[in-house]
């Protein structure tokens, strides 16, 4: 590993000042240190934010919940309020990583983890995300795990988080503190599509510190998180779906759907949800939703199967959430 400076931030302002002048935040470190060992991340300085006071899960006056950015994934999954009111978030967290990693990985860090594209990780291979202008090895290469939606001719990487998919379906917002103060933005506006700047994962500026994630009151209805992967545990999603579905008097009254494993960011498509609202749950209605979701889907060869897999997983998740026989 290359040499770097290390300092522990005593306050959030310390961290933001250091971040604005080029230091990288480290908290759990499970992704950043991994990438530093393979020389993909090369920070000159680390500022350790691990002991800042962002460790609480608090009920909000509006009936929602505020999750400190440093709450470990394991604690968040097990938190009584999350388990009872937002079970799809618990389920998503528990579907990710291993027990050891969940004990260390934080809420903010999970959102900011980087892709597990093999080309991104291997310095001997081209990658526009790692080395802009070097090309994309995955296009025309090995691309079984890659994106079928929203990709560009520069990058077809996917976002690896399960937690972020669940939070997107739950209409999460993030509290970001930067040099100009604190602002709250929808989680949907955090992650970017690759376009011609795949080296930029998010819309945060240097020094922007995620302090918390807030969730509105629980959506009601039935919540489901389903993850399809190559082995039963400790693997990234090929396709994952977070669903919150409310059926009233036999008709779908509300649908929130977010998708993992399909795109450069957790994916949500309002048209798919609108197409379901007002429909009676049926395989035909669910397939029409899948048609909309996948209208622009494009396989890259090895990942062509994801188009059918996403359709079948969506139909199965909607059946489960609607209480229909599987």
């Amino acid at each position, binding site marked *: *590993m290359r*040499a*770097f*400076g*290390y300092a*522990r931030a005593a306050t959030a302002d310390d961290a933001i000042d250091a971040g604005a002048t080029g230091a990288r935040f*480290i908290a*759990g*470190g*499970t992704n950043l*240190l*991994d990438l530093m*060992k393979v020389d993909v991340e090369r920070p000159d300085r*680390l500022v*350790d934010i*691990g002991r800042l006071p962002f460790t609480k899960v608090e009920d909000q006056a509006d009936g929602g919940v505020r999750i400190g950015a440093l709450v470990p994934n*394991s604690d968040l*999954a*097990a938190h*009584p309020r999350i*388990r*009872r009111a937002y*079970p799809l978030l*618990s*389920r998503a967290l*528990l*579907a990710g*990583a*291993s*027990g*050891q*990693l969940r*004990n*260390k990985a934080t809420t903010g860090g999970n959102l900011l983890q980087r892709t597990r594209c093999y080309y991104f990780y291997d310095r001997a291979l081209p990658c526009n995300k790692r080395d802009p202008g070097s090309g994309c090895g995955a296009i025309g290469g090995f691309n079984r795990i890659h994106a079928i939606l929203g990709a560009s001719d520069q990058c077809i990487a996917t976002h690896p988080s399960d937690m972020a998919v669940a939070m997107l379906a739950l209409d999460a917002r993030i509290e970001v503190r930067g040099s100009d103060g604190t602002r709250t933005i929808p989680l949907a506006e955090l992650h970017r599509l690759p376009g011609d700047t795949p080296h930029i994962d998010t819309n945060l500026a240097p020094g922007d510190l995620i302090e918390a994630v807030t969730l509105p009151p629980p959506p009601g209805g039935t919540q489901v998180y389903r993850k399809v992967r190559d082995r*039963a*545990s*400790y693997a990234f999603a090929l396709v994952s779906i977070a669903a919150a579905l409310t059926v009233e008097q036999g008709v779908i009254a509300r649908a929130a759907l977010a998708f993992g494993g399909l795109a450069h960011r957790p994916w949500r498509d309002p048209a798919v949800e609108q197409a379901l609202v007002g429909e009676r749950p049926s395989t035909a209605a669910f397939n029409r939703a899948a048609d909309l979701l996948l209208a622009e889907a494009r396989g890259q060869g090895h990942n062509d199967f994801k188009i059918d897999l996403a359709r079948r997983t969506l139909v199965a998740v909607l059946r489960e959430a609607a209480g229909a026989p599987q």
Partner: protein
Amino acid sequence: MPSLSVNGVERRLDGIDVRTSLLDLLREQLGLTGSKKGCDHGQCGACTILVNGRRINACLTLAVMHDGDEIVTIEGIGTPDALHPMQQAFLHHDGFQCGYCTPGQICSAIGMLDEIARGWPSHASADLENIAIDDAEISERMSGNLCRCSAYPNIVDAIREVAGPASRREPA
């Protein structure tokens, strides 16, 4: 000056290269070679230790990030003359072949049973509120510990034996 406690002994980190992982501190500088370096990327679990009672991968964290923390390694779990019940159970059930993953398996299993005792659910839990411990739960919760000799059936047997009382506790 930063320091941490390792198996109850205070250790100062004077002049440490900040790149030193907690695992390398334990193995290379403190001579505690029970914790093993397998992949060095958090994938195999051979380096699993307990930090403030929680199981983590010692390879994916820097020693300097642990000022004031209490570290327990396999050397602090038990001794040949006074084995921890989990060590005894691994012996009884022959929960290993080459033994390289075993310190990590044992530390992980101890941390994992504490998580169950606190009522934490897992991906294998049908009900997030009421945790029933069975082989599927043990396998899921131990998926961060690989055993290339594939002693998994006996590892699960060993953990199930120790889990007995913990599994009957009520969730938090």
